[in-house]
């Protein structure tokens, strides 16, 4: 240890003058602390795509949690006698083959679809970020091993893999579907996370932290993750939409959610019998439209978030 020197004292006059000159030029911007996050939020609030998709998603999430707010009937209460009936007072969307109210089922369907989408996305983001982040941060042999593993999973077609696994499992409910999507969908996130971590790692501020004596944990949590998380958030938002569509696809194919679970995929599957569709197109139309709007809302949201977070536009 060298002899302890005094802490830096106030600078000489020159520094004060410089500071004064700078204060003059900088104070022209009225706000004080603007983080990149608040800048992004500032952009988002002015983006009509964000506002539309945000309101839609908010609405969808609210009815997924409290479907009874807008649908007072029981989705499982059906009157076979009214099978395939068209719209009627109090039943504006008509009845399906079982005589259940299509409106009620479409509203209640949001819960399963969004639950699967959100849970699968959380799983995918978690696995992908951990695998990709570690591969990018440690590099070398870890990177080789993790990246090749990622490639192997990447090579499994998502739908085909899901069909194979789900047809072997006898459990019902949303969890098998969530687990299968999470187990097979993460490689894309892992690749993006790895790239983002490698980019962030090369910045001088990470070197600066190392030069100060910071450990791996501090570098990863304080410097790399906050700067690598944006592309993962963007990708996850877009993937959320596609996972909702994927759940519907799997349910349609008969391996996803099973009745009595109420979901758009299940209803689309039930409505896809050619005869029924010709006689009563409404039973396919409403769940399919709800599905499309939801998927679109999440993809639009992902786009808007990307535009706001993209450092190249900054």
């Amino acid at each position, binding site marked *: 240890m060298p002899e302890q020197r005094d802490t830096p004292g106030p*600078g000489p006059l020159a520094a004060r003058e410089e500071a004064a000159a700078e204060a003059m030029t900088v104070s022209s911007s009225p706000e004080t602390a603007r983080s990149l996050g608040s800048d992004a939020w500032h952009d988002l609030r002015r983006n009509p795509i964000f506002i539309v998709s945000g309101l839609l998603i908010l609405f969808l999430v609210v009815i997924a949690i409290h479907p009874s707010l807008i649908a007072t009937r029981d989705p499982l209460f059906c009157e076979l006698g009214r099978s395939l009936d068209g719209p009627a007072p109090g039943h504006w969307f008509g009845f399906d083959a079982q005589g259940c109210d299509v409106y009620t089922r479409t509203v209640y369907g949001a819960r399963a679809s969004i639950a699967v989408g959100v849970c699968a996305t959380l799983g995918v983001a978690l696995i992908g970020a951990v695998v990709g982040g570690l591969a990018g941060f440690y590099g070398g042999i870890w990177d080789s091993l993790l990246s*090749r593993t990622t490639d192997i999973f990447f090579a499994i077609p998502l739908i085909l893999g899901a069909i194979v696994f789900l047809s072997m499992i006898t459990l019902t409910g949303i969890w098998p579907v969530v687990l299968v999507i999470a187990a097979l969908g993460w490689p894309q996130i892992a690749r993006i996370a790895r790239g983002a971590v490698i980019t962030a790692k090369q910045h001088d501020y990470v070197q600066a932290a190392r030069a100060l004596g910071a450990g791996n944990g501090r570098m990863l949590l304080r410097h790399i993750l906050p700067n690598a998380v944006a592309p993962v958030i963007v990708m996850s938002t877009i993937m959320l939409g596609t996972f909702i569509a994927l759940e519907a696809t799997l349910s349609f194919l008969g391996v996803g959610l099973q009745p009595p679970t109420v979901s758009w995929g299940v209803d689309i599957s039930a409505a896809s019998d050619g005869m029924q569709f010709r006689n009563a197109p409404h039973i396919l139309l409403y769940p399919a439209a709800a599905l499309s709007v939801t998927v679109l809302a999440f993809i639009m949201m992902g786009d808007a978030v990307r535009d706001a977070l993209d450092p190249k536009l900054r």
Partner: protein
Amino acid sequence: MAETAREPILEVRHLVKHFPLTRGVLFKRQVGAVKAVDDISFELFRGETLGIVGESGCGKSTVAKLLMNLEQPTSGEILYKGEDITKLSGRALKAVRRNIQMVFQDPYTSLNPRMTVGDIIGEPFEIHPEAAPKGDRRAKVRELLDVVGLNPEYINRYPHQFSGGQRQRIGIARGLALNPEIIICDEPVSALDVSVQAQVINLMERLQDEFGLSYMMIAHDLSVVRHISDRVGVMYLGKIVEIGTDREIYEHPTHPYTQALLSAVPVPDPELRGRRERIILHGDVPSPTNPPSGCHFRTRCWKARERCAVEEPPLAVPEGFEEVEGPARHPSACHFAEEKTRVSGA
């Protein structure tokens, strides 16, 4: 300055850094090496400024990274007060890091955009809690901002709200936080506008006097290096080819590369146009993966002879200069060293 304190604070001995070039997907095999730093030795004395100049690819930035222990050398030693810091790890390395700090070239990538200025300058205290008691840290950060000529009220702002010159001041404040003895500066002003460069250079000189710092000033701008350095080393393809005081190097260079480098610097004086000798080097710097045999500079040198291809000239006072008194007598790695005055544009 340098004469009064001849105590080396940092000694570099036979430092070598080769970056392996590998090929292969999972199992990588080495197919060659970039010889970024190829056996260099020098000392840094207490309170002095040692400038290292050279063109891109000469290995000067790698030297900075090695001195900061951000890269592990292939071989060689870096002695800080007699202790080889390349062998240190853990607590001992962390302790040394308090005394050797760095200022980076690019003020835009060297500050974390997600942290406030206060957090950036205060981070050294979080990593080294013994340096300042917790309650004092905020006040210290304000003091540091004041020292580098920034308004202490900016403590809660984010880096992107500042201009390049201001960011560089923030970087300098972070480097100063732990009261280091040595600051390694890798091109500290090259990313800044001319009118702001002078401000930052003045600041760095003032801080050196105020805190008794030793600087390693790595740069490609010869006039900036001359202004601030007590001694200067010239690097070419991973080697130091000439080293001496600023006067020895700029006014009495004996190595042909130094002479060419100095003569190529454009002089901001139109009256001298066409009236000063210019050595225009032909060709480009050879690849550091496969440097020429013998003297690395021989492929572009107008004096090169057979001897240069076989025998590598050592960095020492050249033959014929041992007896000479005066500034021409300084280490220069050339078999055919000749003094040449008045080539300097810087």
